[in-house]
C-alpha cells in the first residue's frame, strides 16, 4: 500500500477541512451573536476579519494539492467556492486592513442575513466535502 501523493493530498485536505469547519462554525456563531445584540460590531469585526484570509488560503491550499495530484473531481467541486471567494474579496468595502467585514455596514439586515446564510452554506459544504475527502482518501489508498 503505497502512500501516494493523491493520498497525501486527501489527508491534508481532511485536516484542513476540519479547520475550515471550525472557521465556519465560528462565523455562524459570531453572526448569531451580532443578531442577538451580544456583541459590539466593532469587536466582532475585529475578531472576524483576521480569519478571512487564512480561511481562503487554506481552502486554496487543498485545491492546489488536488490540482497537483490530479484529483480533478474534487477540484471541480471546489472551483465555484474559489471563484466566490475571489469575487467576495474583490468587492469588499474599502478597508485598510485585511478582511471583509465593515462594522458600519454589517448591522444592515441584508448584510447580516447574507453573511449568516453564507456561514451556514459554507458549513454544510465543508461538512459534505469532508466526507468526500474521506471517501476519496480511502479510494486512493485502496487503489494503491
Amino acid at each position, binding site marked *: 500500500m503505497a502512500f501516494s501523493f493523491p493520498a497525501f493530498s486527501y489527508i491534508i485536505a481532511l485536516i484542513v477541512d476540519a479547520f475550515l469547519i471550525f472557521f465556519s462554525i465560528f462565523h455562524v456563531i459570531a453572526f448569531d451573536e451580532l443578531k442577538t445584540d451580544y456583541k459590539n460590531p466593532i469587536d466582532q469585526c475585529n475578531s472576524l476579519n483576521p480569519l478571512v484570509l487564512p480561511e481562503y488560503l487554506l481552502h486554496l491550499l487543498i485545491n492546489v494539492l488536488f490540482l497537483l495530484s490530479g484529483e480533478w473531481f474534487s477540484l471541480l467541486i471546489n472551483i465555484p467556492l474559489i471563484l466566490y471567494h475571489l469575487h467576495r474579496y474583490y468587492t469588499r468595502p*474599502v478597508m*485598510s486592513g485585511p478582511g471583509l467585514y465593515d462594522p*458600519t455596514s454589517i448591522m*444592515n439586515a441584508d448584510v447580516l442575513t447574507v453573511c449568516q446564510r453564507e456561514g451556514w452554506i459554507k458549513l454544510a459544504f465543508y461538512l459534505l466535502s469532508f466526507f468526500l475527502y474521506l471517501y476519496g482518501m480511502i479510494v486512493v489508498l485502496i487503489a494503491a
Partner: protein
Amino acid sequence: MSNLPPNPYNNFPGPPQVNANTAPPTFNHNQQFGQVPVSQLPPGYGGIKQDPNSNSPLHAPSPAAQNHVLHNVNNYSQSASSSPAFNQPGMMPPPLKQNLQSSPMRPPMSTAPNSLPNPLPPHNVPLSSASPRTVPNANSSPAPYPPSYHPPQRQINDNAPPLIPSSQTTQPLVNGPPSSLPPTGPPQSQYPVSSSAYSSLPGSKPLNSGYGPGLMNTPYAPPPGQVPKPPGSTMPSQPPIPFSGPPVSGPPRNSPLVPGPPVSGPPGGMQGFNGPPPTQGPPRQVGINGPNVSGPSAMPPGPSKPLGQPPPSMGQPPAPMGLVSGPPMGPGAPSPQQYPGQYRNGPQGPPMGPSVQPTGPLGTSTGHMPPPNNFSGPQNPPAGSQMPPMGQQSLPPMGHQMGPPPGPIVQTAPGLKSNMQNRYPQMASAPGNYPNHQAPPIPSLSQQQANIMKQFPQQHLTQQMGQLSVTKQGFDQLWGHHMVDLLQCKHILPEYPEDPPEIKLAHQFADSSNCSPEVFRCTINRIPETNNLLQKSRLPLGILIHPFKDLNHLPVIQCATIVRCRACRTYINPFVYFVDAKRWKCNLCYRVNDLPEEFQYDPVSKSYGDPTRRPEIKSATIEFIAPGEYMLRPPQPAVYLFLFDVSQLARESGYLQVACDTLKANLEALPGDARTQIGIICYDAHVHYYLMSEGLTRPKEMTVLDIDDVFLPSPSSLLVNLSERRELVRELLTVLPSRYSTPAPPSSALGAALQAAYKLMAPTGGRITVFQTCLPNVGPGALQPREDPNARSSKEVAHLNPATDFYKRLALDCSGAQIAVDLFLLNSQYADLASLSGMSKFSAGTVYHIPLFRATRHHQAEQLNRMLTRYLTRKIGFEAVMRVRCTRGISIHTFHGNFFVRSTDLLSLPNVSPDAGFGMQLTIEESLSDLQQVCFQAALLYTSSKGERRIRVHTLALPTASNLTDVLHAADTQCIIGLLSKMAVDRCMSASMSEAREAVMNVAVDALSAFRLAQNLPAGANSSALHAPHSLRLLPLYLLALLKRKAFRTGTSTRLDDRVWDMCNVKVSPLGALVRAVYPDLFPVHQLAHYAHHDDDDDHAPDPPRLQLTAERINSTGAYLLDDGESMILYVCHGVSPAFLSETFGVTAFSQLPDEMRSLPRAASHGSALLHAFIDKLNDDRPYASDILILRDNSPSRTLFTERLVEDRVESAFSYYEFLQHVKNQVK
C-alpha cells in the same frame, strides 16, 4: 419672462374673498404635540416639571413651580456597576474604553512638553494683538437686527436647569464681535511667524481651478420675532359651511361620487353618519346615479368657495385642451377665472364606466356631443387638501356648480357639455372596490334611465340620488379613499401645505395622543398586516424620526423608578393596556407587568387609583430625568474642540476671521455648565496647539512637526475650562486670524490633527468641530484629487465612495470615546467630501458645506456666521444612544442618518443635535393580523449640556390594514419621499447612480401599478387615465423633483463635492427640510396684500398660496419667491408693477435692479413690511435663516431660478407630463 408662455392661470390673485374661509392658522400646541399642557397643571404638581428653558414663551412656568421638583440628579458618586439595570441593554451609554470611574475632569497625561522631539520654541501671543481686519459684516450691514429686536425663543430648547438661564434663548445673533472685546490692533508685528514651520513656501495651488462661477448666496433677512409655528400648521381648517346653495337633494346626477358602501374604515368613524341609504343598489344598476370615478372623484374644494355664486361658466364651451384644465387644489378656492377649468375638465375626462352614449372612448370627444338629457356634471377637481369635516353641514356643496335648480333633470342644463352620467359606471359589487372602469358600456342605458324616470317620481328619485351621492361622497371623505386622475389634474399641488395624514387608531385609543408627525412619522399610516400585503402595495415601509427636535412643550418627569416593561424594556406609554389598576400590558411585547405603587398617584388631582392620568400615559413624547442606574460614568462635561485649517487655501479664503469672530461672540452661549471645556488646534502642514494653562497670561503656541505620529505636548492645558480661561480663549480667537494671514505651505494635515484631537478628547468625549478648506494632502489620511471635471455631467458618477477608510476608522474610534466630529467644509476646490464625510457620518456629526467660500463675499461670510451661530448655540446632547423598539413582528432593516449602529436596534450617537433626523426601513417578519395596532418607540438617552442624564421617549401607534386599498390610501407621500431619498443615496453608493435613478422612477410605477391592481383598473397603456389614490397623488411630482435634485441629477454639471454634500444632507435632514429641498415652495409675492391677515394680531405675515414649479405659473408681471430651505430666490419679472418695485426695492424701474442682489432692502412701505414679514415667517421654522438672492428675469444667473422649476423639461430630464406618460406606459 419673455421666454415663458403667458399663462392664463397666473392672474391668480383672485378676489380677496378667495381666502375668506381660510381661517388664520391657529396652532394648538397641546393638540399638535399631544402633550400634557404642563402649564395647566397646578404648581404643586410633583412628578412633572416644565422645561425651564423650554422654547415656549406661552407656557413659561413660574420658577416656584419648578424648584421644588428639581432634584439633583447629577449623582457623580453613583457607582455604575452597582445599579440594578446595569446589564440591561438600551439603558446604558456605550461602554467606554477608559476611565470609567474617572472624574469628569480629564486625568493628566504623562507627556511633558519638554520631551518633545523637536518642539518649536513656543511663541507667545501678545495680549494686545488683534486682527486688523474688520469683520465683513460686523455691524455695518443694513441692520440685520433692529436694535429692539429680541430674537425669538425658538429652536433652542435647552431643557437643563437654568444654570445659564437666558443666555441661549435671548442671545442676540450678533455677527460682529461684542463691544466688550478689546479693540483690534496691529497684528503681525508682535506675532512672529514660526520660522521653522514655514521655511519652505512652495507656490500655492491655483484657486478655483475647476470650479465654475460662485454660488449665489445672500445675506438673509432676520428671523422674525414671532412665536414659531410648526410647518404644516399653517393649514387653515375649513370652517364647516352650512349648506346653502342648491340643496343636496338636488339633481342627483351631478354627483360625481361613488354611492357605494364604504370600503372599510375605523369603526369609530361611523358616528353621526347615517350610512348609505338602502336604495343605492338599483340606481347603480341602471346607471343613473352611478358613481363617477373618472379621475378626480374627490370632493371639489367646494366648501371654501362662495356658495351662492352663480355658476360662472355654465355656458362656456369646453376648452380644447385636456391637461391644464384642473383647477388648483387645496382649500383655497380657485379664483373665478379658474372655474372654467373645472367644467372643461369634465368633458375631457376619460369615459368612466358604462356610457350612455357612444361618445367615443376618449373624453375629448364627449364634450362636444351633449346628450339631450345630460347633466352638467362638474367634473370635480381632485380633492382639495382639506376635506370638510363630516357632518351635516359639511355635505358637499354641489349646488354651487350646478346653477340650475333641482327640477326636471333632463332639461336643466341643456347647454352644458358635460356628460357626467355617462360616466357612471357599474358599481363593483364587493365593498372596498371602486367601480370598475372597464365595465362594458350599456348601450340602452338611456332608455333604461327613461324607464326608471317613469317608474319613480322624479323628485323622489332626485332626492334619493342626492342622498346617495352625498353619502358616498361623505364616506369617501371619511375613509380618505379618493382617486385622482393624474393626467387630468395638472395643478395637483395643494396651495397650502397639507397636514400629514391623520392616524385613526382603534376605538380604545382613539383619544390617546399620538406622537407629533414632525417627530415621528411612518410611510404608511396603516401598517399592512402581512409582509405579503406590503409587497403587494410595493411601498417602502419605514419610519422617520426627528428625536431631538426643539419642542415647545415637553413634559419632563423625574421619578425614582421609570416604569418599563420587564421583558422588552419598553417605557410605559399612552398605548399600553391596563389589565387592572395594578398591572399593565406592554404594547410591544404583550407582557403583563406590575405597576409600581407610586404610579397610582395622580399628581394633578393628588389622588390615588387612576394610573391613566399620569403624564406618561397622557403624552406620547415625554422626557425622563434618569436616575443613577442609567449612567455608566458620571455625566460628561461639555467639551468642545475646534480644529482650524490654516493651510494656504484656508488663509486665502479668509474664513478664519469669520469663524473666530462668531465663536468669540458666542462663547457665552455655548451650552454647558461650569465644567465646560474648550480647546483649539490649528493645522497646516503641521499641528499647532495652544496652551492656555494656569499661570499663562496669554495663549502659548506649540507646533508639532511630526505629523506621522502625533502626540500631545501638554494635554492638561490644551483643553481648558471655559469659565476659568474665558479671557485667554477670547484673546486667542482674536489673534488667530492675523496669526495665520501670511502665506503658508499648501498642505493640510487634517488626519494628524484629527488623531491629536481624538487623543485629547478620548478621556471625556465631546465635540470636535473641523473647519476644512482643501484636500488633506499630507500625513495620515492624505487624499488624492479624484474628480474629473469633464465628467461632471456624465450619466454615471464615480467616486461617491470614500477613497480610504481612515476617516471612518477614526470616526469609529471617536464614537467609542463619545466624540462627535462635525465638519465645516469651506472649500474652493475639490476636497473629496466623499472620503472626509466619513468622520461625521459614523460619529453622529454633521457636515456643513459652503462651496467656493470666500469671506470677502459678504453673503457667504454672513451665511457662515448664521450657520455657525446656530451650530454653537443650539442644544446638544452628549454620549447619547437611541433605541428604537417595534411591536413584535416588525423589525428594523436599515438605518439612515449619521450614527454608528451598535446593535440591531441601538444607535450610538456621541452627540445628538436638534437638527438631525433619522430614518429606518422596516420589515414585517410575522403576521400582524391579530393586532389592532402597531407601536414604535424611540428612546433617546443622553447627557444634557448641564450634565443631566435624560431620556426622551417618543411613541407612535399606527393601526393595521388588512387589504391593499386601505394600505394604499393610508400612504404618506412626504414620508415616502423622505425615506426613498435616503434609500436612493444608499443605492448610489452601493450600486450606481443610474440604478438608483431607475429605482426611484420605478417607485411611482410600482405604487400606481399596485393601485391599479387593487382597484382593478385598466392597465396604464390601455387607459387614457393614470389613477392614483389621493394619498399618493403627489408621489410622481415629488419623485420627479427628487431626480432633479443635485444629489441625483445627471446631465447637468454638478461638482462632485456638491453632489456628495447633498447626499449627506438627504441622509440627515429632518423630513420637513428634506421635502422643502426636494420640492421648493414657490410663492407669488407681487400681491402679498391680498393674502395678508388684517384681523389677526399676532400674525401679520401674509399667507400666499404655493405655486407649482413650472414656468407656466410664472407670469411676466409678477415676482416670485422660491424657498428651498437653504436659500430663497426672489425672482422679479420684467413686467412687474412699478409700485411693487418702488415699495419693495426702492427703485422706480425694472432696469434699475441689479443683476443680483443679496439682501432685501427694508423700505418704510406696507409692501416691504409684508414681504419681510412673510420671509421672516418662512425663516421661522428652520435652524438658521436662509440666504436670499434677488434675480431679475433677464439677469445672467437666472438659471439658478429656472433650474428649480422641476416640472419643466430640461435637457436630459423629463417634464412632469412626460414623466406621467412614462409612468403610465409602465403601469401594468
